[in-house]
């Protein structure tokens, strides 16, 4: 079983549209994992049935019980996150500032502080329109995207792929270089970088690739909207050669991407301007590279 993780560094490069297209092309051979839990959009293209859902708890939040609290102030003194303040003579915790380190509860002389487990969202196992399975999640509002929910989604996808003898897991990763991305990358067989030829696209590609390189992962790159700026596109290609990153393909700037999305479809479900063939060839190229 191989795990293909699609990331982009920068948002809005077409990562999810391309990932969903691979999922569609892979059909029954593929378990899909949407690890972009902070802006999970793949369900809009793959129509999961949300058949099974479960709450996800991760991390803690301090709560001070006023009946036991003597207002000694030790908790506020040691809190490095300024999460404890005095309101109307009572010590209270600001849930947005609390990091859940639990230090205050440990040093409270009257055991007045409790650590509550935090519900950070919900994760689902769904059947999707390709006949296969998708694991996905919804992160709660303002929740700590520490990467644990991402890891949960990935591990469940892995378990299901093993149980049902699927050949591939396709993972839609998140933007940036922080915890959720690190979680998305762990265990990857191959990383697909989706970029665009803009100064921002190139800048973010280089940063996220540095992370990929740090984990010693094999990678390939799709340059989307390549005709928007031929010069930057060439710079990206030069970067790929230099770093020995497989150049998978170039895709033109095409509003068919938006039209397909607006219809709730992946771009490969209708043959628009040759995009279907290009993406199908890319999927074959990725499979050849990792097998």
């Amino acid at each position, binding site marked *: 079983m191989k795990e293909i993780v699609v990331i982009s560094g920068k948002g809005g490069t077409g990562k999810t549209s391309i990932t969903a297209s691979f999922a569609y092309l892979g059909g029954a051979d593929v378990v899909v994992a949407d690890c972009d839990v902070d802006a999970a959009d793949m369900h809009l293209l793959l129509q999961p049935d949300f058949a099974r859902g479960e709450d996800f708890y991760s991390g803690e939040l301090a709560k001070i019980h006023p009946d036991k609290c003597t207002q000694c102030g030790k908790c506020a003194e040691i809190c490095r996150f300024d999460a404890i303040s005095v309101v109307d003579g009572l010590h209270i915790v600001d849930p947005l500032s609390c990091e859940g380190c639990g230090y205050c509860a440990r040093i409270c002389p009257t055991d007045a502080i409790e650590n509550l487990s935090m519900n950070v969202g919900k994760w689902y196992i769904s059947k999707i329109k390709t006949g296969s399975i998708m694991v996905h999640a919804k992160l709660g*509002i303002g929740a700590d995207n520490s990467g644990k929910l991402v890891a949960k989604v990935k591990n469940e996808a892995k378990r299901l792929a093993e149980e049902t003898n699927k050949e591939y897991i396709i993972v839609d990763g998140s933007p940036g270089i922080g915890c959720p991305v690190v979680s998305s990358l762990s265990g990857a067989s191959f990383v697909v970088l989706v970029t665009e030829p803009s100064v921002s696209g190139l800048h973010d590609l280089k940063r996220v690739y540095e992370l990929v390189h740090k984990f010693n992962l094999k990678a390939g790159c799709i340059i989307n909207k390549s005709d928007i700026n031929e010069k930057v596109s060439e710079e990206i290609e030069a970067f790929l050669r230099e770093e020995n990153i497989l150049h998978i393909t170039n895709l033109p700037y095409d509003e068919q991407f938006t039209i397909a999305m607006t219809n709730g479809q992946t771009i490969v479900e209708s043959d628009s301007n040759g995009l279907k063939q290009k993406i199908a060839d890319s999927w074959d190229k990725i499979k050849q590279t990792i097998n």
Partner: protein
Amino acid sequence: MKIAIASGKGGTGKTTLSVNLSAYLAENEEVVLSDLDVEEPNSGLFIKAQLLHEEEKYKMVPEWKEDQCTLCGICQEVCNFHAVIQLGDMIMVFPELCHGCYACSELCPADTLPMVPKKMGMLKHLRNDKLSFIESRLDIGEEQAVPLIKQSQEYVEEHFSDDILRIYDSPPGTSCPVIEVTRDVDFVILVTEPTPFGLHDLKIAVETMKELKKPFGVVVNRHGIGNDGVLRYCEGEGIPVLAKIPNDRKIAELYSEGKLVYNEVPEVKQELDKIITYLSTLKQGGVQ
């Protein structure tokens, strides 16, 4: 006045709006633009300015001093983030997992885990006439954006007086880094695109702003593609749509070259004027 420019979905035009709005405003008044998308800071690619100052940014993490350690295991027990682990007769610290709570360090009975500074990123302070630009950049391998965002906001607070307009370019999404950027601002501009992805992520961003009790408005970017779902949603929810930036390949091309667009595309300037008018009405309405 402090304004955050945020979005649920990435790549909707946060940076485009931040840099163009800041540069346009700075033609007439002092403006501070602070790029708090520290994982992927891009505003600096569009701002031509002179570097005034740069500094390394540090977070405090524990460092094990072997000689005094009694291997009692308290440090491992008190760390909720698995950043301190006892392996045989060794204590291992994983600084990238450390949240800097000091619990292991201060609860160690033998004082063997003093807190030491560890570099997590860089801050740059640049200036071009009336526009001040603060860029913060997280080091690759550092997983937590929030400590650097906090220190960057502190830098802005210390170096600029309250009456100067501050614009914060936020990271995408709605999780902790975004909360850190938006919690203390006076107004949030949510940038979206008129597509199903844009709408879906906008709804989550709107719920987040409601939870934070933040006043906010929406700017629709690439207006003309997709469908009217976003506009219908905003109308139904009574959310002000401050501007509609047209879908224009020229804008995408200028952006790709790292250029500002408002001087080249008159429609963009018109839309920025609408945002500026809205913000000044807000300011007069009592937001400080």
